[in-house]
């Protein structure tokens, strides 16, 4: 599981995260919501070991991201919102590179990579350079790279940007499948409709502070005016962040 305790991050004079506390359990699909600049990306970057917190800690299955960053990195997969990849590698080579870096058995890689390329409709372009891939194709390739590794925690930052409707559908099914096998999915998104349908729990962050947390239904209730009317997560989000 993931445990974030009193996490604070200060950039120069700006407090990007202010005493953030969160818990995400095994097999949960967790939505991390918030307006632009709220601190979502900073949080996932700290969780993935890309940047270090100013204070506080983040434990991934008991391993501290500050004290044991390499061990945490082995457990976690991170997909950023901008899928920057090595433009002069082919799709197949990129997946081999990721497989090698994460110490995946070579025979398994050779068997699995063609299947993954097929799964994401990239078989035809698998041997072409990534500079010719579109944004969506790169995003799919990164998801394929995650599946090759089978990590215990996956951090997504706006995962569906650039994906076509068919791929989004496939992606959603995939998340359910992974979560059912115990993988923790932590997802930053602005697509509240997707978060509402897909996620089991969510937290809302604003100006670096967690302002609401709980199951999707709990968040909807928190955002309601008390009249008992049925409202969407989007309405609740707007009320909570504006209030």
């Amino acid at each position, binding site marked *: 599981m993931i445990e974030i305790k009193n996490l604070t991050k200060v950039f120069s004079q700006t407090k990007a995260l202010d005493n953030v506390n969160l818990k995400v359990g095994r097999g949960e699909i967790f939505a991390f919501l918030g307006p632009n600049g709220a601190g979502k990306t900073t949080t996932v*970057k700290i969780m993935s070991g890309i*940047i270090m917190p100013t204070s506080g800690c983040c434990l991934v299955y008991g391993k501290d991201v500050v004290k044991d960053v390499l061990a945490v*990195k*082995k457990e976690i997969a991170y997909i950023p919102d901008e899928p920057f990849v090595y433009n002069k590698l082919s799709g197949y*080579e990129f997946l081999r590179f990721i497989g*090698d*870096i*994460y*110490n995946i058995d070579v025979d398994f890689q050779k068997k699995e990579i063609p299947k993954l390329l097929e799964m994401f409709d990239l078989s035809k372009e698998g041997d072409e*350079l990534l500079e010719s891939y579109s944004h969506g194709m790169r995003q799919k390739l990164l998801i394929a790279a995650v599946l090759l590794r089978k990590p215990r925690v996956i951090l997504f930052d706006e995962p569906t940007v650039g994906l076509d409707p068919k791929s989004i559908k496939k992606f959603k099914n995939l998340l359910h499948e992974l979560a059912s096998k115990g993988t923790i999915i932590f997802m930053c998104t602005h697509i509240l409709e997707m978060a509402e349908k897909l996620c089991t729990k969510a937290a809302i962050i604003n100006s670096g502070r967690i302002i609401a947390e709980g199951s999707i239904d709990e968040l909807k209730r928190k955002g309601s005016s008390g009249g008992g009317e049925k409202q969407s997560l989007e309405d609740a989000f707007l009320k909570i962040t504006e209030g």
Partner: protein
Amino acid sequence: MFILLCRRKILSLKNKILHFSRWEIIKNIVFISVGTALLSLLYYGFWRLLNYLENVEVIGPVLSWKLTGMVLLITFAMIVVSSIIISMTTLYYSSDLKFLFSCPIKMRFLFMDKSMDTIFYSSWTLMLAILPYIIALARVKNFGILFYISYFAAIIPFIMIAAAFGILFSMVIMYLFPSSRTRDITWIIGSLSVGFVYVLFRFSRPERLIRPNALEVVAQYINYLQSPTAEYLPSWWLTKGMMSFASGHWGDFALYFFYLLSVSIMVYVFIIWLSEKFYQKGFSGAQSGVKFRGNRSDFFEQKLSTKIGFLKEIFIVVWKDRLLFLRDARYWTQIVLIVSLILVYLFSIKQLPLDSQNIKSLVSFLNVGVAGFVIAAINLRFVFPAVSLEGKSYWILRSSPVKTETLMAAKLIVSGVPAMLVAVILVFFSNKLLEADFFISFLTFATIIISSIVVSVMAIGIGAIFPDFSMENIHQIESSYGGFLYMACAMGYFALVVGLESWPVQMHFAQIYGRPNAWDFEIVSFCLIFFIILNLTAVLIPWKMGVRNLKKHEI
């Protein structure tokens, strides 16, 4: 609309300057001071040369104008070639082009905006580099302020005409063959031409110009001096304009200035008219990727990584970097230039007028310093930027369980080993050409192997202290403050190495000249210990600081 496009550049520059931090102001002041010092040195060299030429009896003034004509012709050719290379990027691959093309801007204004970038980027360094020459010329010939005014008025159309060649070439070639492969081929042809001209120029032994007796017939030499240097090119018009100005022939000056101005206006009117028809198609075509079919067999490093397990991660990053290196045409162009550099270097060594065996050996020893400078410069281009060149893809390795040290070691292997190979070639063949004795050959060979490894580690270390993953090209990385610091450290290191080794070398020559007890082994031991300490310091400090900084670096 064009004014609006220009205003955005002025505004960006203004904001950048106004928001300089104190640290950035200090860095800029240091940078400008060192740059000015280097230009002053260049000025001093030119002044000495022009002063010497001017005072040669009878033909002195003709000689200095001949040299000016050649300098301007070379400058013109260099701007043409660099505008070909640069216009491919500015006109078709600038990061803001997709946005600008989506805006309701007339094609000609967009083209003019990017042409201005091309003119500026392809000429500013050359203009700065010939400025000391022009100042030295003005001083030697006692010209006043009016000369500078006329020079600056005439140099602008001169630069514009030179850059127009590149702009026109890129636009036509991209229109005819609209693909990103065209850019790669143009870059390679461009660098091959530069390399070829460079080698040819050196092989033609221009030093004969200041040694008239080298030519068999003096009359032939004087004829050569008086003949125009490429009379139909703007470089000759500019030279003639300056000559006319100097001799007070205002009518001739006005005529040559008119040539420059009218040709530049005509060329740009034509190019801008053509851009309405050609630019859009070329830009669209440039966005199409190159068809590439890779194969799926294992790479050499992948096979090796399964056999040598503890180096596995290094081998993995090495195969990735090797592929990226070999598939990027920008690096091929650099390699072409380095091969030219090696050829010219060895040719210059061969041409040195040395007769005594001992002088040859001494020059072989001093050659370590020169080769060291060349290696430091090559490292600045290839090794120092290695970490930063991970670019925006750095998140992949940063979020992976690859240690920072492993990443840096892999970069060292991919970029440092070829640099070491160049160093070994330079020193080995220089020693052969100079027929250096065994002691000097051994000492210089061992030194260059150790030193090239040390400066490569230093380059990776300092590159990791000053990483910049947002830079778009190598030139920006190497001309950064980190690049400047690296060059200063590497030069200082080579100065210390040569200084330190000069003691045992002195003893070696003393022995050759028959001095009894020439060797003082206490001093030799001191040199050896200091050499070890120097190398360890030059390796460990930048490396450790680089590792620590890269671990802390946030993206």
